[in-house]
């Protein structure tokens, strides 16, 4: 054991000498995340009002309709992106801090003591398979971009509405989120030790430098893309259910 006097080492949950409001960030982050997760689940379960004209909610893309399935197909479609986010290095940090309180904030005492295993044991050791979820969700990007193209089609003619912009913003955010992924950065070039040893390595180095620029903003893209997914669904949902009318810009 660490030989620190009791007077100094106040242990236990939330024990700290920090004076700042350290609890605000994890509380806010946990609350916003819970609201977004709840909304996405609720919307995925509706199985209605996810489409209007050329607009398709990203929570239902790519659109599959299986009539005999007891669950809304959107739940199946959403499973890989949900697991992609659940195993994302950034979201891991966020929920380990806000929900597992492990730690709640830096230099602030924790709930758990000797049972800590980190990501060495089941189930958290499965976080190591994050790259596979990157591979799968990467395949969603062409569908999401084709949704943008469809969102410019109004009864067969080209047009742009608020919905087109909302869907475009969302697909852009999701693309940036995917390309800024830590596993992608490793795959693209991070796994190399020598960047100058071959023409292939030099090309991967250039790609890795680009991925690193995006990667430095991964947290930003993680939040923005979660907001845009929910807002794009909400917009399509409100238009499809007749609560608001889409505004045509072009």
């Amino acid at each position: 054991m660490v030989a620190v006097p009791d007077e100094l080492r106040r242990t236990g949950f939330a024990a700290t000498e920090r004076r700042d409001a350290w609890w605000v960030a994890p509380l806010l982050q946990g609350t916003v995340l819970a609201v977004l997760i709840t909304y996405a689940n609720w919307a995925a379960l509706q199985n209605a009002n996810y489409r209007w004209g050329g607009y398709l909610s990203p929570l239902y893309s790519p659109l599959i309709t299986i009539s005999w399935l007891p669950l809304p197909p959107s739940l199946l479609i959403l499973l890989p992106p949900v697991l992609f986010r659940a195993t994302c290095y950034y979201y891991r940090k966020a929920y380990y801090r806000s929900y597992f309180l492990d730690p709640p904030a830096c230099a602030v005492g924790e709930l758990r003591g000797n049972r800590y295993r980190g990501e060495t044991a089941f189930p958290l050791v499965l976080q190591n398979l994050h790259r596979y979820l990157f591979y799968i969700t990467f395949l969603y990007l062409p569908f999401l971009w084709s949704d943008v193209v469809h969102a410019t089609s109004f009864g067969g003619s080209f047009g742009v509405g608020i919905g087109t912009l909302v869907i475009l913003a969302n697909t852009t955010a999701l693309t940036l989120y995917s390309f800024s992924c830590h596993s992608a950065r490793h795959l693209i070039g991070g796994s190399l030790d020598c960047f100058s040893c071959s023409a292939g390595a030099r090309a991967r180095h250039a790609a890795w430098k680009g991925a690193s620029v995006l990667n430095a903003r991964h947290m930003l893209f993680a939040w923005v893309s979660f907001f845009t997914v929910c807002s794009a669904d909400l917009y399509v949902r409100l238009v499809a259910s007749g609560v608001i009318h889409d505004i045509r810009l072009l």
Partner: protein
Amino acid sequence: METVLKIFRGDGTAGAFRDYTVPLQPGMVVLDAVHWVQAHQASDLACRWNCKAGRCGSCSAEVNGKPRLMCMTRMDHFPPGEAITLAPMKAFPVLKDLVCDVSWNYGVNRRIPAFRPRPPEPDGTWRMQQDDIDRVQEFRKCIECFLCQDVCHVLRDHDRKDQFAGPRFLVRLAGLEMHPLDAASRTAHLKEEAGIGFCNITKCCTEVCPESIHITDNAIIPLKERVVDDFYDPLRRLWRRLRGTS
């Protein structure tokens, strides 16, 4: 203007915070205030320091509960009139007052597999390009202040010093593992002895690093991905088996 420093006084068996009133000077840092206390009120107050320039990594302590270098923390950073708490790092045994026994770290360092250069080029030399070493140069900025070790909850709260090397040594391992001339693999060491899986990437190490090393994003996560390559990725495992290289 004066301020009160609440400084921990004691050793590994007992201790308490004592108040010292210190006159404030323009540009004063916490280490200056500690020196003032040593000079005027408590000549037996123990604190470690060398450079007073954020270079040697000796003056690590916890100022108002946050791991910081005392020589790089200005007194005007804190609200006037409020007492400032000064404590030794919590993750290590206290020797006296603000001085900790950080020798555990040196043992961890010694066990890291050393640099093993690849064979030299035909002219007997080794060449590297700047592009190849930009990445590892970030890791060489480390001043071994051990603030990241102190704040890491795996060491601080869970006391896993027998299983986890801590962020400082993951940074060192990253510098060796990504070195363009190094031929050794340290992924087995990372997984087993350095216990990289214990890190849950919550980034406190990055938050406190006075050298602004992106410990988690640039060292730990890339190393985790390399460990996945060698130990957890089922397709790579299959591929190695098919090629008979496992």
